[in-house]
């Protein structure tokens, strides 16, 4: 489903060139649950951004669902993100003036989906993520865990091919973090492909496939037998 081949990403910091990714090749299959770990500066966030089409590699090839997306124009990338990728961020990134329901609806609104269909999907998502009583609340009236559930529901609203979570528990206490991971894992159990970037080994261990990056290269790629 996803095939990265020889991905290079170089940042220019002043006069220096920083190699964030050095020839990363990676296949991700439909329905996988993987974690990307590594020390800071190892390139794990850069890899996630490239997977999420928020960043472009300097070299290499990215195939998504059999299509080469490496050379797409900016607005085409936006369209692919909208259709195929769901993001979950460390700081939730909910729009503060919109209610939980409106935040979940936002990708569908941007995609121009008609209100009746949106309503139908929103009701389902609110029920699935236990947010029905919170639908009319604004983010500042929600707990961190609820905010992240809203963010996950939002990521799921377009039925994405891939869910990308960047330190999804980084801003939550341990208990709430585990709750949020349980929600992400449910997405995976229902057939979703989930990739989690984390520096927390306990979170990372939960995934069935664990990729470890060191200095922009894949140092290890382990799988548990149970998937």
């Amino acid at each position, binding site marked *: 489903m996803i095939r990265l081949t020889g991905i290079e990403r170089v940042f220019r910091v002043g006069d220096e060139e920083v190699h964030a990714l050095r020839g990363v090749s990676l296949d991700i299959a439909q329905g996988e649950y993987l974690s990307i770990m590594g020390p800071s500066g190892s390139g794990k966030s850069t890899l996630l951004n490239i997977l999420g089409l928020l960043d472009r590699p300097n070299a290499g090839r990215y195939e998504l669902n059999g299509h080469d997306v490496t050379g797409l124009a900016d607005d085409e990338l*936006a369209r692919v993100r909208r259709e195929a990728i769901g993001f979950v961020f460390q700081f939730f990134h909910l*729009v*503060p003036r919109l209610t939980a329901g409106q935040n979940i609806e936002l990708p569908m609104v941007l995609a121009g989906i008609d*209100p009746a269909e949106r309503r139908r999907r929103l009701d389902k998502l609110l029920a699935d993520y236990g947010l029905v009583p919170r639908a009319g609340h604004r983010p500042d009236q929600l707990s961190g865990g609820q905010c992240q559930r809203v963010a996950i529901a939002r990521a799921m609203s377009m039925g994405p091919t891939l869910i990308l979570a960047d330190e999804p528990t980084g801003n939550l206490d341990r208990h709430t973090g585990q709750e949020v991971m349980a929600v992400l894992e449910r997405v995976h159990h229902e*057939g979703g492909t989930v990739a989690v970037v984390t520096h927390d080994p306990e979170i990372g261990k939960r995934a069935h496939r664990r990729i470890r990056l060191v200095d922009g290269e894949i140092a290890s790629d382990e799988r548990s037998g149970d998937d």
Partner: protein
Amino acid sequence: MDSRKTLDSRIRGNDGCFAVRRAESDLMITRDFIAFTLASLKAHRLRTALTALGIAVGIASVILLTSIGEGLHRFVIAEFTQFGTNIIGVAPGRIQTHGASLGAVNTVRPLSIDDAIALRKAPYVQVADPLVQGNAEVVHAGKSRRVTLYGTGPDFSKALSMRVASGDYLPPDDPHAARAFVVLGSKVAFELFGTDNPLGSRIRVGSERYRVVGVMESKGQILGFDLDDTVFIPVARALDMFNRESLMEIHVTYEPTAPLAEVEEGLRRILVARHGAEDFTLTPQQKMLEVFGTVLDAITFAVAAIGGISLVVGGVGILTILTIGVAERTSEIGLLRAIGATQRSIMLLFLGEAALLSAIGGAAGLLLGWSIAVLLELTFPALPVHTPWMYAVLAELVAVGVGLAAGVMPARHAAGLDPLEALRSE
């Protein structure tokens, strides 16, 4: 593949063609677009209100100033058309400029009563009435008053659409030997006779005695001339009184549907034949109105432009607030881009905010300007104020235009942000 299908149906239901439709639609539904924009504006009520106020003041001042300009326009035109529009003034001498003093006569050949009589035969002409004007003292029963005296023919009131309140206007006597009759302006009648009926009374005008045959309806002032503080006597007697040979003007009225150029040509032909040269000036009322109209339009435009300055200031307000808004909402812009908003959508969202903000301000400004205009009208009835609805529509469009212009820069900046950088900005 089975699990994938579960996910799909969980989210999308059984709507198989949905993916296709989704791919085609690249833009938000208009209603959502407006709702989203409104929510952004409502999130900062005070800020929105103050920014809109800037535009409101601009639009209000444009509306108010153009209303006064337009009111003035209508007032002046009404003042001049109260005598009718199908009038041509014939004055002695070649006077190229309009509006020369009535007394400043520099003529080659006098304009005579017989000229006026001859002009009645010109094509389309209804009335050609001679006029001489001056000052005279009128005396009755020990009261005396210095008034404006008009020496006219019997058709004067008809030519200038003036009405007689009681009695009649001067009778159609032999123009060279008319009887000593006088018609009084309403103010003169009141000053000399009070509430008594002046008809049939004898008064002294200059050194001669005249019999009052009529009293005019009140006509008010025009450009400083009190048209009621006047007396009207036969033109030949007035010429004798002032010891003049020439009339000051002949008022010619013509059939309203007649072509002006042909009317003018007819008059010119007759007078040139009588005088041997074109030593007179024709001044059609219509042409004067056109000149006035041009001048007054220019004044209206100028005051509108002055109001426009405050509108520009309002636009700068929008620019400022939107620039701040983009800076504050960088992270939100990043999120919107991450979840699939195109650059175009971001640009449209911010332009929409600018347009909505200025439209709200514009509407408030219209209301404000119009309220002040009504208030002015009620407080100072003499001040002519008129707000054509076209101006209101135009002002609202201008407001939205100003908003869009002010929004372009911040909106472009917002659209050009790198999604990743923007996301990190929190």
